[in-house]
Structures are given as C-alpha cells and as structure tokens.
C-alpha cells in the first residue's frame, strides 16, 4: 500500500512530539490514539503532533485530537497541531478545528508556543 502509516514519539523535557506519517484513517487511528494515551500516562500534557509527513486524515484521526484535548488542558497542557499541508488541511477546516486548536507551521514554533504564556488557541499559524 502506498503511504504506509507510522507513528513515532520523542520527548524533550516537558514536551512530547508525536510524528505521524502516511494515512490516518479508521484502521490506523487507534495506533495514533495509543501513542497519545501513552505520553499522557507518562504524565506529559504538552503534546505537539507533527503532521508534516501525514498524507491523509479522516474523521477517525480527527476524533483522536478531540478525545484528549480537554484532559490535557485540564492539566495546563495542550495538543498543538503542526506541519499540515494544504492537501490534508480541509477536514480540519470543515469541522472547525481552528476555533479550538492551536495550529503551528512546524515543531519548533509549536515548542515556542508552549513557552508563550499568552498563547491563544486559533492564533496565527
């Protein structure tokens, strides 16, 4: 199959970066969910999801972002979404993710956003 899915997590201090590659659909989303759950279980609530190499996402993948956002924000954390290409942006836009999530151009800017106490969800990407 083209675009094989993979998910990798790296942690640097307080911030966990989850990198998605390939297609996130109803078949692969559970692996993404497991990765997010694992970092939260380890006590990390500042999460960056790097979508730069993600080629596709359906509602199953979007649902993973929705499942955990309240939980991490309750612990003063956040899930920041970065590296979205024009091709995969549309489902996020249709469902109105911009109003609830912080989108960043890349991992470095997402890290900096965590350091910025005035960060506003839906701010400039």
């Amino acid at each position: 199959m083209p675009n094989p899915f993979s998910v990798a997590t790296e942690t640097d201090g307080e911030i966990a970066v989850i990198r998605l590659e390939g297609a996130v659909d109803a078949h692969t989303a559970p692996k993404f969910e497991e990765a997010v759950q694992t970092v939260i279980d380890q006590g990390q609530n500042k999460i960056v999801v790097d979508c730069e190499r993600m080629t596709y996402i359906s509602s199953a993948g979007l649902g993973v972002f929705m499942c955990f956002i309240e939980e991490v924000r309750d612990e003063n954390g956040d899930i920041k979404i970065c590296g979205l290409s024009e091709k995969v942006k549309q489902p996020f836009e249709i469902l109105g993710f911009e109003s609830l999530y912080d989108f960043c151009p890349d991992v470095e800017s997402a890290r900096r956003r965590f350091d910025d106490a005035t960060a506003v969800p839906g701010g400039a990407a």
Partner: protein
Amino acid sequence: MEQIERKFALTVPSSTENLALIREFVGSIAQQSGMDAADAGKLELAVDEACANVIEHAYGHDISKEVIIRAKLDGETLSIDVEDTGHGFDPNAVKQEKLDELVNKRRTGGLGMRLMKTLMDEVRYEIEPGKKNELHMVKKLKKK
C-alpha cells in the same frame, strides 16, 4: 457528443484494513473523470467515511461481511453508492453538534456524516434494516 456511461464496482471484506484499497479505487475513477486533485481528495474522503461507518457501525467489524462500492460516471456527474446488509440506522437521528459541544462531551459521533455532506453535492440514504442499506452520493463534474 453523447457521453457513454461507465460503471465500476468493488467488493471488499468489512475490515478497516481495506479503506486504503477503497480510496485507491475511488481515486482511480476520479482520475478517469478528469476531476482535479482537490476534488478527487474530497471524493476519497467522503467514500472512506461512508465505508468506515459501514465497517464499524453497520457490521460491527464482522470481516465475514461485504462492503460494496459502485461508481457510475457520465459526462456530468460521478455517483457513488455504498451498499451493506448490516444494521441500519436513522440518518436523521444523527445530531450535527458543534465541535466544542462534542469535545465537552468527549464524543466524536457524526463527524463522518458532516464531512460527507460538506464534500459531496448530494448525500442520500435508503435504509432497509437487515436487508439492504444504500448510501448514494453524487459529485458534479466541472465543465471543461
């Protein structure tokens, strides 16, 4: 000149593993239709959502069941029918809640249907529980 109608069909076991295959099938027909990449992407996503709903909800991940995807291409439209024989549902009972309400309730239901309705020009269900359920979707082709 009169356009010749072209028909395509794909039958796959009811497993999410086959969603990538379904997207390839639909993408290939979109390419034949002359659709641009953006519209082809919309079509692939809408059909993926429809089939994922069938696999998860109508069939409850029962891999012995089949999902049938039929496509019809004429000069003006690309129609896709997704057919199953699983549990039917009342599409009107699926609430279209706002994202923040869903997040508050930690629910994600109804997102797929919202995407389908936004991405396609027509979405219509014919539900006969336990017999046959059909989802008809239409994408109008842009005039060249």
